C-alpha cells in the first residue's frame, strides 16, 4: 500500500472541506473496499479522510420513513428489529452480501459506493477504462462471465456489485447528500450511472459530496418479499444474478409489485415494465413467467455471459415464487 496522509475530522463539514481541497483524497468509512483496492494499487489516494466516527450512524423511524445514517453498519441494519419487520427485503439483501465479519465493518454509505468487481478493473496490468480512462476495456473481448447484459457501452460492460443497492432501488429509497454547495436528495435510482463514455464515474455524486443518510419509505411490502442471489458458491461470493422481489397481495391478487435485478448492469436494475405487468394479476407461475419475459426485453449477452439470458428470467420467476410461496 502506498503511503498516505490521514485525517479524522470531527464534523461532516470539515470532512467535506478536506475532500474538496484535495482531489487526490478519499473518504474512508469501513475501508473494506477502499483498503482492498489500495493494497492492489487500483486506487492510490494521497490522503484518507476518516469519516467512520462522524455522528452519522443513527437508524431512526420518522413517520412512515426509515432514515438510516450512512455510517450505520450493514450488520446493525440487517439485525434491527424494526427493519426486519418493516423492510425485510433490505435485511435479506444485506445478509446476502459478504460475510459476518465484513458486515460488521461495512457501512451503508460505503456499500452503495463500492466499486465494480470486474477482474480487469482489479488487475493493474490489464487495460480498463474505468481504472485508467482511455486504456480500453479488457472485458469486452475477454472473459466476461460476470458482466452486464443491460445498459452497457462499448467503453465498459461492468456490473455494480452491491446487493443492498438492489433492494434499495426496488424500495424507492432516497440518498441524502451534503456537499460544498449544500445538501441535496437523490432518488436512489439516480445515484448510480450507466457507463456511457465516462465509465470512470460510477455515480452522479459531485466532487466532495458526502452521503449522510438513506431514506426508505415503509411500503406495503412487508410479507411477500424475497432477495434471491445466484452465485458460484453457496455463500460468500458476489452475485452472478440477483433479484429483489416484493409484492403486495390481496386475496392472491397482486396490488403492487417491485422488481429489481443485480449483477446485470452498471447500476442496480429496476424492472418497471415487468412490475406494471404484475399488477392486477393473480400470483401464479404463469403471471411470473410473463413478467420475467418482459423484464428481459433488450438484454444482450457477450461471449461468456450468455447464460445470464436464461438465468435472469428463471431467477425472477423463482424470486417471485419464493416471495409468495407459490410452489
Amino acid at each position, binding site marked *: 500500500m502506498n503511503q498516505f496522509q*490521514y485525517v*479524522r475530522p470531527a464534523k461532516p463539514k470539515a470532512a467535506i472541506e478536506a475532500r474538496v481541497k484535495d482531489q487526490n483524497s478519499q473518504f474512508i468509512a469501513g475501508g473494506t473496499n477502499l483498503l482492498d483496492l489500495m493494497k492492489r494499487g487500483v486506487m492510490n489516494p494521497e490522503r484518507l479522510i476518516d469519516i467512520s*466516527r462522524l455522528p452519522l450512524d443513527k437508524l431512526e423511524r420518522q413517520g412512515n420513513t426509515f432514515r438510516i445514517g450512512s455510517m450505520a453498519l450493514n450488520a446493525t441494519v440487517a439485525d434491527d428489529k424494526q427493519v426486519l419487520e418493516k423492510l425485510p427485503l433490505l435485511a435479506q439483501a444485506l445478509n446476502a452480501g459478504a460475510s459476518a465479519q465484513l458486515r460488521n465493518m461495512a457501512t451503508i454509505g460505503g456499500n452503495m459506493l463500492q466499486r465494480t468487481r470486474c477482474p480487469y478493473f482489479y488487475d493493474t496490468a490489464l487495460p480498463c477504462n474505468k481504472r485508467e480512462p482511455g486504456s480500453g476495456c479488457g472485458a469486452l473481448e475477454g472473459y466476461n462471465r460476470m458482466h452486464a447484459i443491460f445498459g452497457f457501452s462499448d467503453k465498459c460492460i461492468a456490473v455494480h456489485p452491491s446487493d443492498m443497492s438492489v433492494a434499495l432501488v426496488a424500495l424507492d429509497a432516497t440518498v441524502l447528500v451534503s456537499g460544498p454547495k449544500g445538501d441535496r436528495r437523490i432518488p436512489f435510482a439516480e445515484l448510480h450511472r450507466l457507463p456511457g463514455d465516462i465509465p470512470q464515474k460510477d455515480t452522479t455524486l459531485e466532487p466532495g459530496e458526502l452521503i449522510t443518510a438513506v431514506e426508505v419509505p415503509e411500503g406495503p411490502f412487508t410479507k411477500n418479499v424475497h432477495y434471491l442471489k445466484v452465485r458460484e458458491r453457496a455463500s460468500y461470493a458476489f452475485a452472478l444474478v440477483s433479484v429483489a422481489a416484493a409484492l403486495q397481495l390481496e386475496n392472491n391478487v397482486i396490488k403492487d409489485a417491485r422488481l429489481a435485478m443485480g449483477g446485470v448492469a452498471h447500476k442496480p436494475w429496476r424492472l418497471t415494465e415487468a412490475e406494471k405487468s404484475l399488477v392486477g394479476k393473480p400470483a401464479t407461475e404463469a403471471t411470473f413467467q410473463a413478467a420475467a419475459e418482459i423484464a428481459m426485453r433488450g438484454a444482450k449477452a457477450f461471449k461468456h455471459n450468455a447464460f445470464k439470458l436464461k438465468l435472469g428470467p428463471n431467477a425472477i420467476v423463482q424470486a417471485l415464487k419464493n416471495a409468495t410461496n407459490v410452489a
Partner: protein
Amino acid sequence: MADEISDSKPENEERSHDAARRNFLKQSSVLTALALTPGPVVQAAAAEWDEKIAAPFEKVPLKLAVNGKSYKLSVEPRVTLLDLLREQMHLTGTKKGCDYGQCGACTVHIDGKRVNSCLVLAVMQDGREITTIEGLAKGDDLHPMQEAFIKNDGFQCGYCTPGQIMSAVACIREGKANSETEIKEFMSGNICRCGAYPNIVSAIQEVKNGGQKV
C-alpha cells in the same frame, strides 16, 4: 530528505516485498525523525480538520486495549491492525491468510464485534478494545470454544483455527448459532483449506447447546 525516504520505501507489490517492508518497519523509528514533514499536518490542523492527523511517514500515537491490557503504541497511517498485532506486538496467533478479507484467518474482535483485521487500519481504532485468540483463554483455562474444537477435531493443519474460533465465539454471541444451516451461513467468512467444516460445526453446536458462557 523526504525524497530520499520515498526512494527507500518498499514497492507497492505484495508478498515479495514483505521482507523489505518488515525491515522498513524496523528502521522506521529512525526514518520517522527524517520523514517528518510537518507541512500537511500543520495545514490540516489550521483548517480544523482536527481530531487526529498523520503525515504519510509519521508515526502517530495510538491507544489500544488488547486482550485486557492497555497499550500506548505508535503506528504509520498505512499499518493494518493485523500487521500491528503480528509484527509490532508479536501477537502471532492471529493469522494472515489472503490479506484481502476473503478467508477469515485474521478475525479478531473490536469492541466485541468480529472483523477481518487485514482490512482495518490501526490508526482508525484509537481507544478501542481488541480481543485476539491469545485473549480468549483465562490463564491456563482454555475457552470453552477452544476445548470444543480440540474435542471435536475441529482442525487439521490449524492455520485457519484461530480465526474460526474467534468467529465461532462471535457467532454464538450474535445469536446466529441456532441451527446447522445458520451456523454454516454465519461461519461462511472463514475458509478452511483442510475442510474441517463438519467438526467445526459440531464444536459450535456443542458449546451452544452446553449453554456455557462464551
